[in-house]
């Protein structure tokens, strides 16, 4: 018997029991739809995390200033201004594994334009900072090395700040007041969205670190910087860069051996990779739970095929009497099971895709329907059909024609 006529025979007997076939398919439909939706949600979460990680910048190390001991009391890392501008310069210039280094300093304060004011983060940095964080300028320009040298009162506005202070007006060239000093806005930064920690990265004003040190911070330690951001040449050089930075700073600070360092080097990429693996585990879990319902759908197919084989014992006997071989009967019932599973799978894919789109519309979650997941779901439903259809089909094909013909 060729496949076409076998398919036609199978299709007819499924149509003869419409209600039963539809209900059996429903099990597959729900299973496949659940897998598609869950994978889409998991994939969406993954993609959002990846985007956030990319927004921080790639292959970054963070050098934090160390602790000080004063009167026997040891403060934690970051409490003492032990890193300097020249540390940052040396790291950027001397180390072969490092592409760039930027000193950075944070503080906060109100920014005023006209009758609008907005309290925000003030980020002191050098021009390379934007490139390291892969941060683009949508209008205007970056501040220059020259402006950094001369501690000019220029600044870049994050999108959130620009929106609140200027609305639809173009901020470039305007004067804003930061802590009562006038600053010229030279550029507006592109939107970056949320950080992996959930902060609005666009709620920021970036200005030359020298300006910040001299005009705003009022720091007791002139020349000290908050942190140094270091970018390795590439992902393979992160470990080297980490080691070289540590060695260089030990040398410069004359701290000698580990344990009494007055700084610490953190691998930012590693921390973010951790967040990524957490979402991956979540999406695997979601997919796994959904797969269970697919399994239940498969068992439903097996159940109904077993009933169908018993019910049609006489038909099997007749077919055998007129010359059907074992494999003809086997393929007839197997094809029936596969048609049930595949039709259910196809409807489930449509429903699941619709559900995923609806979820992102209603709940505002990012969902991603990947063609790979759709193909996998389709292939998996075919496999479910074959796997759960095989036992009933084999049972049918092994029947004794005489007994089958006598069956009432």
């Amino acid at each position, binding site marked *: *018997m060729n496949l076409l006529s076998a398919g036609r025979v199978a299709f007819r007997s499924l149509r*003869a029991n419409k209600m039963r076939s539809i209900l059996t398919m429903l099990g597959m439909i729900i299973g496949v739809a659940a897998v598609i939706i869950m994978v889409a949600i998991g994939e969406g979460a993954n993609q959002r995390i990846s985007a956030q990680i990319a927004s921080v910048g790639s292959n970054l190390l963070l050098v934090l200033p160390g602790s000080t001991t004063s009167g026997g009391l040891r403060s934690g890392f970051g409490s003492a201004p032990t890193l300097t501008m020249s540390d940052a310069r040396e790291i950027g210039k001397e180390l072969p594994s490092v592409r760039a280094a930027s000193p950075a300093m944070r503080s906060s304060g109100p920014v005023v334009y006209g009758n609008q004011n907005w309290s925000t983060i003030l980020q002191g940095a050098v021009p390379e900072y934007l490139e390291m964080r892969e941060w683009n300028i949508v209008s205007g320009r970056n501040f220059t090395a020259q402006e950094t040298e001369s501690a000019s009162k220029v600044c870049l506005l994050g999108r959130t700040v620009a929106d609140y202070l200027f609305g639809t007006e173009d901020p470039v060239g305007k004067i804003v007041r930061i802590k009562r000093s006038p600053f010229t806005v030279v550029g507006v930064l592109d939107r970056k969205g949320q950080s992996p920690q959930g902060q609005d990265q666009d709620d920021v004003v970036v200005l030359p670190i020298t300006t910040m040190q001299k005009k705003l911070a009022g720091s007791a330690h002139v020349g000290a910087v908050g942190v140094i951001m270091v970018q390795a040449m590439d992902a393979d050089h992160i470990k080297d860069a980490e080691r070289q930075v540590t060695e260089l700073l030990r040398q410069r600070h004359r701290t000698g051996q580990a344990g009494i360092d007055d700084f610490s080097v953190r691998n930012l990429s590693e921390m973010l990779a951790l967040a990524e693996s957490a979402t991956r585990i979540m999406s695997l879990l979601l997919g796994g739970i959904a797969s269970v319902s697919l399994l239940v759908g498969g068992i439903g197919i097996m159940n109904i095929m077993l009933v169908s084989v018993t019910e049609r014992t006489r038909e099997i006997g*007749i077919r055998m009497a007129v010359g059907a071989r*074992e494999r003809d009967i086997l393929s007839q019932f197997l094809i029936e099971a596969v048609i049930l599973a595949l039709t259910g799978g196809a409807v489930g894919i449509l429903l699941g895709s619709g559900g995923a789109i609806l979820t992102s519309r209603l709940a505002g979650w990012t969902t991603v329907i990947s063609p790979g997941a759709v193909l996998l779901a389709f292939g998996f439903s075919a496999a479910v059909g074959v796997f759960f259809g095989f036992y009933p089909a084999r049972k049918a094909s092994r029947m004794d024609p005489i007994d089958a013909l006598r069956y009432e």
Partner: protein
Amino acid sequence: MESKRVIAAIEVSGLVKTYRLGDVLVEALKGIDLSIPAGEFLAVMGPSGSGKSTLMNILGCLDRPTAGTYRIDGEEVGNLSRDGRAVLRRSRLGFVFQGFNLLSRLSARENVELPMIYDATPAPVRRERALSALSSVGLADRAHHLPSQLSGGQQQRVAIARAIVNTPAMILADEPTGNLDSSTSEEIMRIFQLLNDERRITLVLVTHEPDIALFAKRVVRFLDGRIVEDRPVANRYRPSALPETRK
């Protein structure tokens, strides 16, 4: 091949069939020797449990003998595999049952096509041969009816069409008139006679009714798994022509 099929001769010797029922061995056939020349029309008679159906199952290659040989045209077929027997059934044997055994969801034509579905006959050829088989049993105009829309006699004629569609060497009919009234029975038996006369198809017919056995050329009587009588039919009943088929 075509001519060889028509002259098929059946040769059975020393046929034994034992069943195990629980822990009792039942000997259904106790050594049967039977020779059926090509073109024979044999009626098998005997009480229930005498072994007729067991013999029919073995002749129909639905079952294997415990011992003995079964040859069609000198070729041993008693020990074929399941699939080998299936192929033999669809190419050289036809079955007609007491209960018609048509598939209720298929039309008359599709039921007749059934044996050809399994030997990969192309669909247009299948259709053409099914229609010609149906018209030779007088049902050309019922091709699209479902079995439930046909009378018992018509259903049995569909079953006969199904049995002859692959031009078999032998048709095995197990009480084909058991569920039919006497005039319909006569109709069916005349079709059998016609097939036997015109197409030289060998016929083996199991029946309880002596009247029906009169349509055959030869009668074999079974008792307790043995043949106790084997004689030609002396006063064979041969109506001259087919009666008009009932609509």
